[in-house]
């Protein structure tokens, strides 16, 4: 391995200057000559039978070029995939419809019914209003527990609303509870929440000279070219995705958003078509994070040792399946957290309702589990009159241990209780309040979150690295960059291996046909997967340079390194060959100075879903977060004073980027804990814009302190672990536990609003 020259340094990303200068083009910043504007006509009702869609008036409006309904969609009923090239059946099919079909059910408010393309945005909007839709209203079902009852209203055409079920059994849970000296049971309710990325969905499509559909879009998954091709009934190679820089995703741009719509309209009109969502449409059109109901039962000895844990999850999937099954699996596997518990029983049921569909969101089911287990473990500590850090130290996993759910043995370093101790200590001196109405409290939570996808998806990533004749480097990768610095990381790795500066590297990325497919920017997988692919490709080119330089310098290649554009003899840097001369020597000898490499994750079979055992993820990141809050007991208002986030990141390849994830994840999680709620009343969303759907502002946010543990034990390049999603884990229960510490109020229904806290504090008053 080469020395760390570029890797491990907090160097600015390759695209940072373009962003501060306002030069970087996002999906909404492209226009094409003769382009049309698209609009989507959507359902006003959450549950209805679609009787008829009359488009005649809309079609005859001047300037309207196309109006499409489900009848115009070659393959309307389709399956959402997220980039996997292997088909996993077994109940994982993420069914949805492109457009609602006449004679069938409408399932949620905002469900797309028809598409319009027109000469201007205003005409397209007017045409949408002219579409005459006849509905037969149906009662619908909105509560997942109601939806599971035997005679419940059926959301779709199947005879049950239950999408699928998962389970994990370890030891004998009944025996475990019999042996327990303390048992606590509780129930938690977690609402739908929104990603609230700043960039609404946008895209533009056009036909090229050969009849290929080109789509320029902000998507986390350019492998959706296959899915759009299937909707259009075209061969896969006739749809091309050109991914733009993404203005935030967090899972919300993981499913197809605007792409099928504009592709259909372009095929029909033969003209470029552009579709940009307003914020209101974005909120009603894209998925939400699954709402969960969780029933927990935990049993322990008086000394704090946990003996048994039972969890039952009901996941509210909303109107269509999408990625619901995978979320259910993540939650099930994560249900015991990083605790060693001998007797475990987990059951998860994912249920359809007439709410907006739920799908991917940073944390992907593991968060919801984390909120449950870290609340109940905290309750256990309180009941036993034990320090919250102490109970975690007594029960947490250590290096070499297995998860208590799947019994997958973790082969890398487990940074527990180390991370918990560091996070707790990181809070420093306790805050003090002179005001008797302001109560200060502290909380902690620990957890694990996978990085990399489920191993039975058989994940891979590819990357191309080329050393140019002038010594500059070209990296080509299909990697979508959603703000984490994913593309920049690849240039950092290539620069490090080939001994050049970052400025010498140009990354060409995110083209489904011209760049090697790198897989999705989801599941905290890119550092691990594409980082390894880039490293593999760069090393191949490096070795060819070293071998050639070894001949010229007449030394063993093992003795050589590339530093500052020189192939140097290690320990004697006076002897060297300029990189440019080594390149020339290779080119003269016909030695290829490029490489396209593929990295494969570990592959496994599909587990028994009723009792998931063995490896389901390549590895996990372990960490802890601690929070200090001030609660006003007269108003119930919570102010978070301090957050400490401590994770084993393996190796921080770019410390500024890793800190950025840890700081951003903490504040996004603070919003989940305190204010974010995509409330839906009988199917009608109550937070139609960012004026109602509140996310943390700079004033609400404390300065997050980050502590990176670099164990070097990760599966990524140079021993890195992924941190994108893990950094969003733990923070919610850490804040809830701090609120309890300050006030004695246990939040069982998120978010922890002032109203809920004051109602609990003044129970007696509200009873009157």
């Amino acid at each position: 391995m080469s020395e760390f020259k570029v890797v491990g340094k907090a160097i600015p990303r390759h695209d940072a200057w373009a962003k501060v200068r306002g030069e970087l083009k996002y999906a909404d910043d492209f226009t094409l000559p003769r382009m049309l504007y698209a609009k989507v006509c959507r359902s006003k009702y959450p549950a209805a039978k679609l009787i008829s869609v009359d488009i005649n008036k809309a079609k005859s409006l001047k300037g309207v070029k196309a109006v499409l309904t489900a009848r115009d969609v070659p393959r309307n009923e389709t399956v959402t995939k997220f980039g996997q090239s292997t088909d996993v059946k077994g109940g994982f099919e993420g069914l949805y419809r492109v457009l609602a079909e006449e004679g069938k059910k409408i399932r949620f408010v905002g469900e797309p019914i028809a598409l319009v393309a027109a000469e201007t945005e205003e005409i397209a909007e007017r045409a949408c209003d002219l579409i005459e839709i006849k509905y037969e209203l149906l009662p619908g079902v909105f509560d997942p527990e109601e939806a599971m009852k035997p005679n419940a209203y059926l959301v779709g055409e199947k005879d049950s609303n239950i999408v699928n079920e998962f389970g994990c059994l370890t030891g004998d849970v009944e025996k475990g509870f019999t042996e327990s000296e303390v048992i606590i049971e509780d129930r938690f309710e977690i609402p739908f929440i929104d990603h609230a990325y700043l960039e609404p969905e946008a895209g533009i499509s056009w036909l090229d000279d050969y009849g290929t559909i080109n789509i320029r879009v902000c998507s986390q998954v350019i492998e959706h070219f296959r899915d759009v091709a299937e909707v259009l009934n075209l061969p896969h190679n006739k749809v091309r995705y050109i991914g733009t820089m993404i203005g935030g995703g967090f899972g919300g741009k993981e499913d197809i958003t605007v792409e099928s719509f504009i592709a259909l309209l372009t095929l029909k009109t033969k003209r470029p078509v552009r579709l940009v969502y307003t914020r209101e449409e974005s909120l009603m059109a894209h998925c939400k994070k699954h709402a969960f109901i969780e029933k927990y039962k935990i049993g322990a000895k008086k000394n704090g040792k946990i003996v048994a844990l039972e969890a039952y999850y009901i996941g509210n999937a909303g109107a269509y399946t999408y990625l619901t099954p995978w979320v259910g699996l993540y939650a099930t596997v994560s249900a015991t957290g990083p605790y060693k518990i001998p007797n475990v029983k987990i059951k998860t049921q994912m249920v359809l309702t007439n709410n907006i569909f739920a799908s991917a969101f940073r944390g992907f089911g593991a968060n919801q589990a984390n909120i449950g287990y870290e609340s109940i473990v905290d309750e256990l500590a309180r009941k036993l009159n034990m320090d919250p850090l102490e109970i975690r130290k007594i029960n947490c996993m250590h290096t070499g241990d297995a998860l208590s759910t799947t019994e997958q043995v973790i082969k890398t370093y487990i940074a527990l209780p180390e991370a918990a101790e560091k996070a707790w200590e990181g809070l420093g001196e306790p805050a003090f309040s002179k005001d008797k109405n302001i109560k200060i409290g502290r909380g902690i939570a620990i957890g694990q979150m996978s990085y990399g996808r489920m191993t039975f998806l058989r994940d891979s990533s590819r990357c191309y690295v080329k050393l140019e004749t002038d010594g500059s480097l070209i990296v080509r990768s299909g990697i979508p960059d959603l703000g984490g610095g994913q593309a920049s990381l690849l240039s950092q790795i290539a620069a490090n291996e080939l001994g050049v500066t970052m400025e010498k590297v140009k990354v060409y990325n995110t083209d489904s046909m011209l760049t090697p497919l790198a897989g999705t920017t989801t599941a905290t997988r890119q550092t691990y997967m594409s980082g390894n692919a880039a490293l593999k490709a760069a090393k191949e080119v490096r070795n060819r340079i070293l071998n050639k330089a070894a001949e010229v310098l007449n030394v063993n290649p093992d003795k050589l390194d590339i530093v500052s554009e020189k192939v140097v003899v290690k320990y004697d840097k006076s002897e060297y060959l300029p990189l440019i001369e080594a390149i020339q020597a290779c080119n003269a000898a016909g030695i290829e100075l490029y490489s396209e490499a593929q990295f494969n994750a570990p592959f496994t079979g599909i587990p028994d879903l009723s009792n998931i055992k063995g490896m389901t993820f390549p590895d996990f990141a372990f960490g802890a977060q601690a929070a200090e809050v001030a609660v006003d007991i007269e108003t119930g208002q919570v102010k978070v004073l301090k957050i400490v986030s401590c994770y084993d990141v393996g190796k921080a390849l770019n410390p500024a980027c890793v800190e950025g994830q840890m700081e951003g994840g903490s504040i996004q999680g603070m919003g989940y804990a305190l204010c974010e709620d995509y409330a839906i009343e009988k199917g009608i969303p109550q937070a139609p814009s960012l004026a109602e759907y509140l996310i943390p502002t700079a004033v609400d946010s404390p300065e997050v302190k980050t502590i990176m543990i670099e164990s070097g034990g990760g599966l990524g390049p140079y021993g890195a672990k992924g941190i994108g999603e893990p950094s969003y884990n733990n923070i919610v229960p850490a804040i809830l536990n701090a609120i309890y510490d300050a006030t004695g109020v246990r939040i069982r229904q998120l978010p922890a609003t002032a109203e809920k806290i004051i109602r609990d504090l003044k129970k007696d008053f509200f009873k009157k």
Partner: protein
Amino acid sequence: MEEYKIQLTVNDEKISVVAKAEESLLKFLRRNGFTEVKCGCEKGDCGTCTVIMNGKTIKSCITLAIQANGKEILTAKGLEKTKIGQKLQESFVRHGAVQCGFCTAGMLMAAKGYLDTNPEPDKEEIRKAISGNLCRCTGYKKIVEAIYDVAAENYGLEGDINV
């Protein structure tokens, strides 16, 4: 819709274009190629469309284009022509205050507008000054540090100097 010809200066460039009566300054600017002004919500909630008009920080989505008639507009692309603007850009890059970048152009304008009038703020005041600009990626820490660094360097200076 009625149309008016308006004249304004954007980043030192004089333009004379027709604006629709109901058109927001945001839509007008984007339609005329100033795509660095971003559209995140179109109702004043998110701050991605922040620009400076005659020295005052405004949200261009809730300003009419015709209100900009005869005015001077500064967007992110004009920042490098001002000293504080340059320093802010450099500081954002150095601190890693830019992630997805969609809020960045608006955030820089809010920061620049604030430092022009309040050259010696503390971090709490900076947080208040940018509280109308949402960021979902960074958790704000690096943004606040980046702005604070520029302020600290400029103590004693009043207003900005064009370079």
